[in-house]
C-alpha cells in the first residue's frame, strides 16, 4: 500500500514537471487532467472519499472541460484557423506601417 501511494506521488510530481515543460497547451491541459485524476486516487488511499468524489467531478471533470473550451475559443486546438492567420497578417502589416 505504502509503495503504491509513493509511486502515485512520484507520478504526480512527474505530471507536474511535464505540465511545466510541454510546449503544446492542449497536451499540458490533458496532463493536468491526469494529475487531478491521480490526486483523487491519492485521496481515496488517505480515507477521504468526499474529497475524492469532489476532485474527480470538479478537478478532472469540469475544470478540464473549461480549459478545453477556453483553448477552443483561443483556437489553440484548431490549427486551421483562418481568421487568426488573416488577423496576424493584418497585424504584421499594421506594425511595419507603424515603424515607418
Amino acid at each position, binding site marked *: 500500500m505504502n509503495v503504491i501511494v509513493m509511486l502515485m506521488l512520484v507520478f504526480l510530481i512527474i505530471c507536474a514537471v511535464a505540465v511545466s515543460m510541454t510546449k503544446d497547451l492542449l497536451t499540458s491541459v490533458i496532463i493536468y487532467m491526469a494529475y487531478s485524476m491521480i490526486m483523487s486516487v491519492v485521496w481515496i488511499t488517505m480515507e*477521504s*472519499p*468526499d474529497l*475524492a*468524489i*469532489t476532485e474527480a*467531478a*470538479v478537478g478532472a*471533470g*469540469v475544470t478540464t*472541460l*473549461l480549459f478545453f*473550451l*477556453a483553448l*477552443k*475559443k483561443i483556437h489553440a486546438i484548431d490549427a486551421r484557423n483562418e*481568421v*487568426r492567420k488573416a*488577423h496576424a497578417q493584418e497585424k504584421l502589416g499594421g506594425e511595419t506601417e507603424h515603424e515607418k
Partner: protein
Amino acid sequence: MKSKMMNKLSEWLTDEASALEREMEASQERAADEDEAALTPAEIRWAQEEKEEEERIARRLNEWTDETGTKISRTLYSILCLVICLTLIVLLLYTVTELPSFGSPDHPINNEVSARYIEKGLQETGAVNIVTGMILDYRAFDTLGESSVLFTAAMVVLFLLRKDKESHKYSPLAKVMHDNPHSDTYYEPKNDIILQKTAFVLVPIVLLTGVYVVLNGHLSPGGGFSGGAIMGAGLILYVIAFGFAKMRRFFTYKTYQFVVLIALLTYACSKCYSFFTGANHIPSVIPLGTPGAILSSGLILVLNICVGFVVTCTMYCFYAVFRKGEL
C-alpha cells in the same frame, strides 16, 4: 414627518438618476452620430503634443530595452524566481522534518475539537457523514462564504463573457468569430447519431447519480457540491449532444437567475435562522430525525439540495457562457 422627508429625498434622488440615465442615452446616441470633427482646436493641439511626447519617451525606452534590456531583466527575473523557489523548498522541507510523523495519532490536530465532532457529531447534527455535518452545521459560516465565492465567480464570468455591445466594439476578432456561422459559437449538432444515442442513455444515468449524491450527502460521501458538479456535467453532455436550441426549451438565462436566487435565498435564510437561534441560545425547532434515514439531519438536507442546485446551474452557466457568450 420622517417618512415624508424620506419620500422627498428618494424622489429627489430618483429624479436625478432617471434624468442622468436619459442624458447618458442621449449622449451615447449623439456620440455615435458625431465624428471627430467635434473636437475643439485646443483639444487637438493638446492631444498632438501629448502624443509627440509619449512617442519620444517610447522611442527612448525602446532603444534602451529593445535588445539587451529585456533579455537581461528577463534572465534576472528568472534567476530571482528560481532562488525564491529554492529557498521556499528548503525552508518548507525543513518544516516537514519537524512535523509529527505521517499517520501517527498523536498529531496536534487530533485534539478535543475533532474528538467532539466524531463522538457527538451524529447526535448533534444528525448527519452520518461527519464531514458533511461539520461543514454544514458546525462550521456553517465558512460554507456560506464558499457558496458566495462561487456566486461571485459566476457573476464575474457572466460579466466578462456575456455578449454585449462593448465586447464586440473593440475586438475585430471577436466580431468575426461571433459572426462566422461555422464557428463553435453557432455550431449545433444535427445528426451525430452516435453521440445522441450515447447521450440518450448516459444523461439520465449521470443526472440520477448526481441527484443520489446530493440527497445522500449526509449519509454517504459526497454532498451538494460534488453532486451538483455531476449534475452540471450531465446537463453539459445533453447540450453537447442535442444543442442549445433544445436546451433552451427548459433552461434559459431566466431559469438560471430564478433557480440561483431561490436556492441562495433559502440557504441564506435558513442559516440566518440557525445563527440567530444559536447565538441567542434559543433551541432550534427543526427535528433531526432518525440518523441514517434520508429525511434526517434537519437543515443539512435542505442546504445540500440548495448547494446542489446552485452548483448545477453555475457549472452549466460556465459552459454555456464560455462556448456561446449567452445562456
